[in-house]
């Protein structure tokens, strides 16, 4: 049984195209995974930088606060020293109180700063964890989508292959029927020819045998008789 070359080539081309699409999709999937991993790394680096900057900013803010307090204390001392109404004892007491107050404020500010820093770090940690979870979810989502696409693609490929096989099968069946019909017709025709040839051969053989069977004298006699008939029918005219 012979498959028509066009059908066979069509089948091969379909398989080739589906194969190329499969390779392209796999390649896209791998590229996407790589991108996600890169994004995750970049995200981590950015967060680390943010942490460092935040710490620095808080430190600067704390130092500024301490400096402001110190400057205020100095200013107060200066004002007090210029006031005549205050005596030395009162000045000392006030100075002590002020120093104590400044120290307490400074300590309170440091505690507050540390607390804020801890809370900030904790929040950042949560945020980082949420980002990681989000990235993981996105990654899984993409993976699921791609797997779904591949599954659809496989189904389409299977469907296309089955369709192609069906078309090829139908075509073969059609060609086979046609060939069968043609062979039957050809056979009938050839048999008819053979019959005719057999008749001719047998006639020829019979003629030769019959001719051989006639004596030479009889042959000559028949020729002369035929000549006489010919004279009567054509020569005289």
């Amino acid at each position, binding site marked *: 049984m012979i498959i028509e070359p066009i059908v066979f080539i069509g089948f091969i081309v379909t398989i080739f195209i589906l194969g190329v699409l499969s390779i392209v999709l796999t390649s896209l999937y791998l590229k996407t995974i790589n991108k996600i991993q890169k994004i995750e790394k970049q995200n981590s680096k950015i967060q680390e930088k943010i942490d460092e900057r935040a710490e620095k900013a808080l430190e600067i803010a704390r130092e500024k606060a301490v400096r402001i307090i110190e400057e205020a204390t100095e200013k107060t001392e200066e004002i007090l020293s210029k006031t005549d109404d205050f005596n030395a004892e009162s000045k000392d007491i006030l100075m002590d109180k002020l120093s104590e107050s400044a120290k307490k404020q400074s300590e309170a500010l440091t505690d507050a700063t540390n607390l804020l820093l801890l809370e900030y770090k904790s929040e950042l940690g949560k945020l980082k964890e949420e980002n990681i979870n989000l990235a993981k979810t996105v990654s899984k989502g993409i993976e699921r989508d791609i797997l779904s696409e591949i599954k659809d693609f496989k189904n389409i490929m299977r469907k296309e292959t089955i369709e192609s096989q069906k078309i090829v099968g139908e075509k073969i069946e059609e060609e086979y029927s046609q060939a069968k019909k043609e062979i039957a017709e050809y056979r009938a025709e050839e048999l008819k020819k053979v019959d005719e040839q057999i008749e001719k051969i047998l*006639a020829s053989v019979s003629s030769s045998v019959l*001719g051989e069977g006639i004596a030479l004298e009889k042959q000559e006699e*028949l*020729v002369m008789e*035929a000549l006489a008939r010919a004279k009567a029918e054509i020569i005289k005219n």
Partner: protein
Amino acid sequence: MNKTAREILSLVRTKEDLNMLESEIETLLTALFKKNVKKSAKESVRSDIYKILENHFAKVKWDPEALRKILINLQDEISQFKTISLTIAFEPSAKFMEELSNWVKTNIGEKVFIDLSIDRSVIAGLVVAYKGIYKDYSARKVLNKKVEKGEIEFKKFLI
């Protein structure tokens, strides 16, 4: 037609004989310029034709011009001849061939040659073609008619 030409033509019975004679005349005509005409004639034609020519020039000298006239006369005569085609089923003997030739000359005319063919399938009898008319008086024709009518079926002999 002169006597020598008639004698030569009497040797010709079939188309083959006629063709050969035409060829011999052509050869001899081209050889007439040679010095020894007698020798050229002997080399160009068959012995029986040469004998007739030898008899003609027995009392006179071999003259190229006289010979040329004979040959031209022969060519003229041949061009006027008609052909009757006969097909028979067997190889004829010389005697039967002469009989046929005589019959043709007597019943049709002197200036008619026989173009004879042998075909075994004729079985017996004769197939004639003359002046564009074809007639089949063979046993083959009778047999074919019977086969066509279904009176004879050869295939049944195979079974």
